Structures are given as C-alpha cells and as structure tokens.
C-alpha cells in the first residue's frame, strides 16, 4: 500500500503546489486548514520550504538551489538582501546574530525563520536574478553538485559545468520527474581531484576516457543516511557528455518506476541497488529506459583523486588562493560551519564585484569562493577586513569544521550542532597542534543519523547522541575516525560512543597527541586509523573534561529555541502572523 506521503503527492505535487502556496501566503498562516497541515508542509518542500521544528510553528527554512554551487554575478547581493529582510526570527543566535545564510554541504543556500506571508515577495526577488527554490527539497531532482570550480579549474578533464547546467535545466520543473519515490541526488565531476563527491550520491558522473574520448563513468546508489551508508556502485556504463542527460533521464526514470513507494525508509535507490546488484541495474536501464546502446565503462581517473583523500594534496577543500585555467585566481574563504551573517554576505557580494567577476561559488565543505580575481587584485583583496573573519588561510580546525543545522531548527536532530562546532573549533585552534604536514583535518558534526554534515567521510566524525552524566541526561556524541573519499573511499569507524559533549574537545586533543606520538614518519591520520583496529583506536580517544565550556548540554530539543533565556516550549511566540506577532493559542 502506498505511504500516506504518496497519497498526498497523488493529490497535489510538483509545479502545481506553487499556486496553492502563494494563495496561502496571500491569506496568511491561519488559512492553511489545520487538518491539512501535514499534507501541505510535505508538499511545500518541493518548493524549497521546510516547516521548522516543534516550538517554531509558522516559520520555515527556505532552501535555494544553486546548481554546482554557482552564484552568478548579481545573485549573492539578492541572497544577502533577502536574508537581511526576511530571515529574522523572534530571537537572535548568540554566535551569528539575527539574520544569516547557511552554505550547505550540497552547495545550496538555506535561510531560516521565513514567514509564509513573505514568500511571494521573496520568490519575486530571487527569480528576478534567476535564483529558485524549486525542488530544493522534496521527492525529486535535488540541487546538482559538482566540482565547485568546474569550468575554471586547471585540473579538469572535462568542463562539468555545462553538463550540470544542462541537467538542471532538463530536470527542474520537468513534470515527468517531478514526483519520484524519494529524493534524487546527482553529482557531476570533471576534474582529476574527485571533488564532486560522486561516491555519496544517488547518481554520479565521474570523468573517464573511452577509445580516446573523454566522458563519464556512471555510478549509482551512494548515500549516507540512516546508518545505511553506501558508496555509489559502478554499473559499467560510460557516456559522452552530450548523452549525460539521456542516461540521467533513464536512471531517474528507472527509479521512478521501481523505487519503493510503500516504505519511505526503503525508498532511496541505494536499496534498489542492494537488491538488484549493478548488473541488473545496467540491464534494466538498457532494456527499458534508454533507446541507444550503452557503452561499457571507460578508464576512470580515480587513481588521481586527491580530494578528501587524507593526503593533504591538491586544492582539496578549495580554501586558499589558486590559479584558474584562464590565468585569474579563485580565492576560497573559510566559513566556519557554513554560516555567514547577512551583512557579511552583502559585503562578500561587494568584494566579489570589486575584485573579481562578481561570481561566487559554494563548496561541499560549506565554504565560499570568490572567482575570477586578476593577480593584481589579490593583495588588496587579502587585506580586506572581511577576510579576517573568513580567512583564505585558516587554522586546520576552522577550515575542517562542518556542522548540520541541528536542534536549533531541525526536527530530526538529537543535539545542538552549529554553535557547538564553532566553540569546538575555537578551542581546538587554541589548545591542539596538529602535525605540520596536516593542513586539512576534517571534523564533521551531524546532529543525527540523517548525516547532513556527512560525518562518515571525515577524519573525526561526530554524531548526535544522549548519555547520562552524574545521572542527568546530557547531549553526547558518538566519535568515528578515519573516513574520507579519494580513489578508495572509506567510511569512518565508530570507535567511542556516547561521549558527553563537553568531553569531546578533550577527546580530540588526546587523540591528536596520541597520533603524533605513535605515527610513522609521514603517516597520514587516515592511514594511521586504517592500520589500527577499533579497540586500539578507542584507547587513543580518551574523553576528558577540560576548560572547554559547553552551554548546550541540556536537552536543547525540548526548548523552543536553545539560546534564549526563557527557552521553555510554552514560552514560544510561535505560531505568529505575517508581522511576527503571536497568534492566539487553541489551548
């Protein structure tokens, strides 16, 4: 029997949701019939709107899909303006203030505290510069990811940007693929460093050569969620760039037809690949979903992959100053946990215009890149005050930090994440010294098993948990080690479980010191972890209280907003009307 979500989708889904959404917005929050809340909130996701968690009713997270993380000239200013004007809630965040943008691990933008009534105006502003929230969430083609400097990279085999752009234009708003059994995540990689992160996507295009021609090998069924992490699997297919959209149509058509619509927990295509195996996936794709003969896989370039491979080679996280193929430079700036204040975002837009082409790109490590900076502008750009906070030369602990949304806004998260990871990174920067040959050290904090911060592919993986300390329940984290991508990707080994959150910085300090004491000459952290079993590694992680203070040890999920003085759920002003004024409660 189809799930309830499928029934709602059968009634209204895809592009047609927009007219309803705009009508509700026109009439206000209370116009959504109470007994239809769940159905409409599920549908609104398709237009990039996610109803915030309990205690924050009537407020939405809005996601803007920026394919391949490309923010074209003129777009960032609008994003900053929208954040400043509309993404303000009833309370400030103590680290980030009252309006901010989140750069996500899928090269998208997220804004919070969006009111339903403001959505028509926001859509007008975004769409006036070619930005859209369409399909940013929901069961369809999500934002396409790839190498953030595609088309301008010196390490590129194929310019992946036109391919990503074609896929975006073909499948965004396309009714044939608007209602899939579940989300559909696609990555296009064209460079020899592997920074498209194809291995953790539903469908991956990876650079490969066939009979002297450059194109893509296809992998299917990667993903990290639900303690069911999978690497995408090679289905022995190569396509030239001009056929990429045809194969993508075929594969998402296959998913549409054979994906599980009865059990959403079993719906992602990774489970179908588990069930069928790569050979059958290929066969069904060939027999039923493409009308040309599929080529067998070409020779891939994975042995050259350096991105997140643990080796501290290549441009890796794209932070820093790197030469483009046209002689200009891109300047990658570290944005700690991917969150940037609206005023800083507007300042960034100005700097991109003044020193570069105005184009900015987002990375899958929650950072931003100013593109197309002529060499003669580099010194002046580097001396701009904004770059003191968003540095191209940050501490490894700052540049390596990724955090998901967490209990601040998310229904699923178990723990607070972004503010905590900010505090972790600052403490680690001041108290822990990595070996000099480890400029990159990735710590990813995910509030739950959904894995939005991609914890399984970090050097140190942190995942939200609970434990008891002195008998009282406190927020805690599971600690995993040694994950990463590269030619032979591997997921982290979970070695120390349920560590109270205030003991995690001490644990990382002890781990790093043990690593420094025991490593072979030149041994990377990842190799060090790979060479040891879980028990040995667990002994090297020694959780310990330090002078690190964690203000979020209590059950932040039980608050309406974790950072306000009166955080009791009953004190929430939500739901509110279009002016942010509390609406009368039914109780």
């Amino acid at each position, binding site marked *: 029997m189809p*799930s*309830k*979500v499928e029934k709602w989708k059968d009634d209204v889904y895809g592009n047609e949701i927009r007219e309803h959404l705009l009508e509700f917005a026109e009439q206000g929050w209370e116009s959504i019939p*109470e*007994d*239809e*809340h*769940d159905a409409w*909130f*599920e549908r609104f996701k398709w237009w990039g709107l996610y109803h915030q*968690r*309990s205690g924050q*009713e009537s407020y939405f997270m809005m996601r803007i899909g920026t394919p391949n993380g490309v923010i074209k000239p003129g777009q960032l200013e609008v994003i900053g303006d929208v954040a400043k004007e509309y993404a303000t809630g009833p309370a400030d965040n103590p680290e980030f203030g009252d309006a901010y943008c989140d750069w996500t691990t899928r090269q998208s933008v997220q804004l919070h505290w969006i009111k339903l009534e403001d959505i028509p105006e926001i859509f007008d502003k975004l769409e006036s510069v070619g930005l859209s929230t369409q399909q940013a969430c929901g069961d369809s083609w999500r934002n396409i990811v790839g190498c953030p400097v595609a088309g301008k990279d010196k390490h590129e085999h194929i310019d992946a940007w036109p391919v990503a752009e074609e896929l975006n234009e073909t499948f965004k708003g396309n009714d044939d693929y608007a209602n899939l059994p579940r989300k559909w995540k696609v990555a296009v990689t064209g460079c020899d460093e592997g920074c498209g992160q194809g291995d953790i996507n539903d469908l991956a295009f990876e650079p490969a050569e066939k009979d002297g021609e450059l194109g893509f090998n296809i992998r299917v069924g990667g993903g990290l*969620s*639900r303690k069911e992490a999978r690497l995408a699997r090679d289905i022995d297919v190569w396509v030239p760039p001009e056929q990429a959209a045809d194969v993508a149509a075929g594969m998402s058509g296959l998913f549409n037809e054979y994906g599980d619509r009865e059990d*959403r*927990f079993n719906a992602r295509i990774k489970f179908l690949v588990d069930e069928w195996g790569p050979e059958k996936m290929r066969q069904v794709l060939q027999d039923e979903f493409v009308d040309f003969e599929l080529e067998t896989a070409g020779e891939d370039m994975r042995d050259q992959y350096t991105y997140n491979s643990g080796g501290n080679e290549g441009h890796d996280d794209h932070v820093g100053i790197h030469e483009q193929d046209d002689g200009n430079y891109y300047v990658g700036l570290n944005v700690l946990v991917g969150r940037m204040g609206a005023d800083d975002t507007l300042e960034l837009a100005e700097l991109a215009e003044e020193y570069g082409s105005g184009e900015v790109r987002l990375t899958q490590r929650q950072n931003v890149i100013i593109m197309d900076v002529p060499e003669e502008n580099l010194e002046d750009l580097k001396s701009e005050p904004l770059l003191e906070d968003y540095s191209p030369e940050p501490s490894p602990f700052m540049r390596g930090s990724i955090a998901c949304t967490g*209990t601040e806004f*998310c*229904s*699923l*998260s*178990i*723990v607070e994440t972004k503010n905590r990871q900010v505090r972790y990174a600052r403490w680690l920067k001041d108290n822990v010294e990595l070996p000099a040959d480890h400029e990159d050290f990735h710590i990813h904090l995910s509030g*739950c*098993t*959904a894995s939005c911060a991609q914890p399984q592919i970090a050097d140190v993986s942190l995942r*939200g*948990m*609970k*434990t*008891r300390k002195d008998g009282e*329940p406190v927020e*805690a984290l599971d600690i995993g080690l040694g994950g990463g991508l590269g030619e032979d990707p591997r997921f982290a080994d979970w070695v120390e*479980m*349920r560590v109270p959150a205030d003991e995690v910085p001490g644990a990382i300090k002890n781990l790093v010191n043990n690593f420094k004491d025991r490593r072979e000459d030149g041994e990377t952290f990842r190799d060090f972890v790979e060479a040891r079993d879980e028990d040995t590694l667990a002994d090297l992680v020694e959780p310990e209280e330090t002078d690190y203070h964690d203000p979020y040890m209590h*059950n932040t*999920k*039980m608050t309406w907003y974790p950072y306000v003085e009166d955080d009791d759920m009953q004190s929430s002003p939500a739901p509110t009307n279009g002016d942010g004024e509390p609406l009368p409660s039914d109780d």
Partner: protein
Amino acid sequence: MTTDVHQLDDGAWISVNDSREVNVSDLWLLARSDFCDCETTDFLAEGFVKVGVDHPDIEARIAGQCIACGASGITDWLTVGRVVDPKSGDFYGVVHESVHFPEKRTRLARTAD
C-alpha cells in the same frame, strides 16, 4: 472522527490529527523489554518507524538505542499517548521519563505510516 496518525520527516515526529505530538531525541525508560540485557533500557528515540492506533492508545515502534549498554534496534510497540475521545481528537501524551512496557502485538490494530 477517525484518529489520524503518521510519522513524518524521516520519522522525526509523530503527528496526531495534524498536530506534532511526539518527537525524537527523548529518553524513554523501558522495562520487561527484550531490547537489551539491561534491567531497564535507557532508550534514546532516534526515529519513529511505525505508528498505529489501538484505541484509545497511540502506539509506535521506535528506532534507537540503549544509552547504557549501546544496544541499538527497534522497539516493540510502545504506547506514546492516547486519544480518549475521537470526536475531540485531543491527544494526551505519556510521560516518557516514566517506565514503559513495550509489547508484541497479540491482536490487530490499525497501522498507519
């Protein structure tokens, strides 16, 4: 009216009559359970896998783990609250910190998704 129950947002919460009522991330004490070997299971709810109605009880099977011993899995059916009067539809949640007894179903109940 019929009591309408489902889990949403990847099992993040249980909706009863279109109202968010039970969230993940709470600790539940489970007794007489074969979830793990602990005398009482100190169970962290990480996701609602199935929900159902066995009037007047609203029940769920919950994915999570015992934070004392680390055993993880899915509970048997747990009562998470009650809708005593289907006409009003008012939901009364149980106190998750008190002791609960998950049960294997011995009779059919209406399951929802």
